[in-house]
C-alpha cells in the first residue's frame, strides 16, 4: 500500500516517512501542497494521504478541497496531521473534506490505529466500486434485451440493431448470460418419433422390396 505524505518541515517529513516505512508502507514524500495535489491526480495516485495543514503553495486544506471537488477522481482517504489543534481548526479541516484529523506531535500508536481505520474504509470503497462496476455491466446487458425486436413469423429469426437477421438463440446468447442446450421437448420428440417411424413404415418398406 502506497501512502502520500506532505509536510514542509523536513524533520517531521523524515520522521513520518521512516515510521511508515518501518510499518511496511511504500511512501511518496512531498515537501509542499502543490506537489501533493499533483501527485494525487495521477491514475496510480495513492489511496491514502497524510497532509500537513500549513504548507507553502497550496495548504493541506486546499489540497483536500481540490480532491473532493473533482468528481471523477478516485476516492483518497485523507488524514490531516497538523499542529493546529483548536476545535475550530478540527471542524474546518473535516468540513474541507478530510476523513480524519490528528494533531502534532503525534504518537505512532495512535497514527497506526487511525491508519487501520483508513485502510478499512479504502478496502470497503474499493470493493463497493467493484460491485457497482459489476452491477452496471449486468444492467447494460439487461437493457440490451429490452425493446421491440423484429422477428420473422416463419423462421423465427430476429433482426438486430445492425439490420442482421440471426437465430433467436444466438441473439439471446450474445445479449445475456443465457446459454442454450439443445434438446427436444416432449411434443417435438413425439413428432420426430412419428416422422421417423413413417419414413420406415410398411409402404416404404414395401416399395424397397419391390
Amino acid at each position, binding site marked *: 500500500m502506497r501512502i502520500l505524505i506532505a509536510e514542509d518541515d523536513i*524533520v517531521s517529513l523524515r520522521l513520518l516517512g521512516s515510521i511508515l516505512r*518501518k510499518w*511496511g508502507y511504500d511512501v511518496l514524500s512531498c515537501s509542499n501542497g502543490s506537489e501533493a495535489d499533483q501527485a494525487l491526480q495521477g491514475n496510480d495516485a495513492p489511496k491514502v494521504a497524510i497532509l*500537513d495543514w*500549513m504548507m507553502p503553495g497550496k495548504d493541506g486544506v486546499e489540497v483536500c478541497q481540490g480532491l473532493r471537488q473533482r468528481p471523477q477522481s478516485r476516492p483518497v482517504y485523507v488524514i490531516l496531521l497538523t499542529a493546529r489543534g483548536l476545535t475550530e481548526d478540527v471542524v474546518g479541516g473535516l468540513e474541507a473534506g478530510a476523513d480524519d484529523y490528528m494533531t*502534532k*506531535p503525534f504518537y505512532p500508536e495512535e497514527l497506526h490505529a487511525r491508519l487501520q481505520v483508513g485502510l478499512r474504509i479504502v478496502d470497503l470503497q474499493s470493493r463497493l466500486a467493484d460491485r457497482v462496476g459489476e452491477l452496471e455491466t449486468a444492467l447494460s446487458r439487461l437493457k440490451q434485451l429490452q425493446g421491440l425486436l423484429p422477428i420473422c413469423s416463419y423462421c423465427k429469426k430476429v433482426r438486430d440493431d445492425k439490420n442482421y437477421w440471426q437465430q433467436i438463440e444466438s441473439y439471446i446468447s450474445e445479449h445475456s448470460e443465457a446459454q442454450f442446450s439443445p434438446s427436444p421437448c416432449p411434443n417435438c420428440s413425439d413428432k420426430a418419433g412419428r416422422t421417423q417411424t413413417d419414413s420406415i413404415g410398411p409402404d416404404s418398406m414395401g416399395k424397397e422390396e419391390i
Partner: protein
Amino acid sequence: MTTRIPGPESVLLGSCRRLCQTTDHGQEVEAARVFDQVAALMRVEGDIELLLEIVEVFLEDSPRLMARIRTALERQDLSLLEQAAHTLKGSVGNFCAPAAYAAASKLEKFGREGNVTGRQEAWNELQETMEQLRLALMSLRDERLA
C-alpha cells in the same frame, strides 16, 4: 504488511534510569523542559537510531528556520512570521521540547494576530530555548557516538 516492529525497550529503560538517577529534582524538571528524552523516544517507538537520524536533520535545518523567523521580524512580514514559526514549532515538537515549543508558538501567535508588543522578548526567548535544545541534542548525539 503493517506489522509493527516494537522499539528496543532497553533504550527506554536506560533513559528512565538516567533520569531517576538525577538527584536534583529541579534540574530534572528543567532538563525535561528543554528536551524530554523519554517522551521523545516514545514518539519514535523507542527507536534511538531514528531519533538520532532526525536529530541530525534538525541540527542541520533549524538555523534556516530561525533565519526565516528573523527575516520575517525584520521585514515585519506577519504572514511569513506565522508560517515560519509554525514550521519550527512542528519541528521542535518532535523532540518533546516544551520550552522551545512554547516560544515558537508565541511568535506564531504574534504573526497570526499582528501584535507588536513583546515580539522582541519572544524572539529572545526563542533564541535562548533553541540554543538549549540544540546543545541537549548535540550532547545526546555525541554520547551515542562516544
